[in-house]
């Protein structure tokens, strides 16, 4: 069983969480002219790196908060987690 440390609840089982993808993707600015291709890239396309990855997780069966995790996509090691408005300690 993989344990994930929710910044609000502490260490909990992975099956209380759901994965939310790359945390570094920025939504195009509201009201700004944007090409279909850029919009397409924002909505559908993600890098698929091997190694360290900053990602979003949702404690969906717990406190229902979104937070950030720094995780190795190859080993599944989680280096750190933090609230959305915080930075990692590492």
């Amino acid at each position, binding site marked *: *069983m993989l344990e994930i440390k929710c910044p*609000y*609840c*502490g*260490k*909990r*089982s992975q*099956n*209380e969480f759901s994965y939310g993808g790359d945390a570094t993707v920025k939504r195009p600015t509201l009201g700004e002219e944007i090409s279909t291709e850029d919009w397409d890239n924002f909505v559908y396309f993600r890098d698929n790196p091997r190694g360290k990855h900053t990602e979003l997780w949702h404690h969906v*069966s*717990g*406190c*229902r*908060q979104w937070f950030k995790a720094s995780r190795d996509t190859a080993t599944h090691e989680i280096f750190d987690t933090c609230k959305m408005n915080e930075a990692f300690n590492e």
Partner: protein
Amino acid sequence: MARELDLNMPVIENISPLHFDHKLGFYGDYENKDDILKLTEVKELSIFQIAKFKKSSVDINQIIFNNLKLPTKSLTVTSDNIARILWLGPDTWLIVSRDKKLIEDIHNIFNENDFAVTDISQSRAVIEISGSKSKDVLKKGSPLNFNNDMFKPNNCANTTYNGINIIIDFISEKPDCFNLFALRSFGGSFYHSITDSCLEYGYEAI
């Protein structure tokens, strides 16, 4: 041919969520044991979810509801013998009480500019389980860590039980007693999930 609506059909009111599942009696391996589990449906609770709006500047520590403060520490409950207030998440709480009069208080104290107040009394099935083996029953379906006194009386948690989202409220210990909340529509399947786990210890449905 379409079935016509029978206007003389009896109106069924106040059927509790586990009415068709919770049948009184002794079940499982209960014979020759003096320490079996007890299971009951907790009915007619008032259950309110309180969420503070992000834009609100209210200081939570200044709010007193029925002599109780709102717990700000995660996974904790403040309580007296009238109400229990459970921490559900940041700025989100559950108020549980048998006292219907508290409802007026809720709307006075949690005004609509600062809080979203939702009456979810009808939407939860609630089971009370007590007995020295209750933790073992919970461990069978929930990934929450019940070891090493990590989860103590007046702790609560949102978690899952065999895939069903539930809230566990640790009421008291010796013997351990928990209130378990599931969505009403999951009530039957949650009830059977719990009672299946109780069989090897023996239980009395009261």
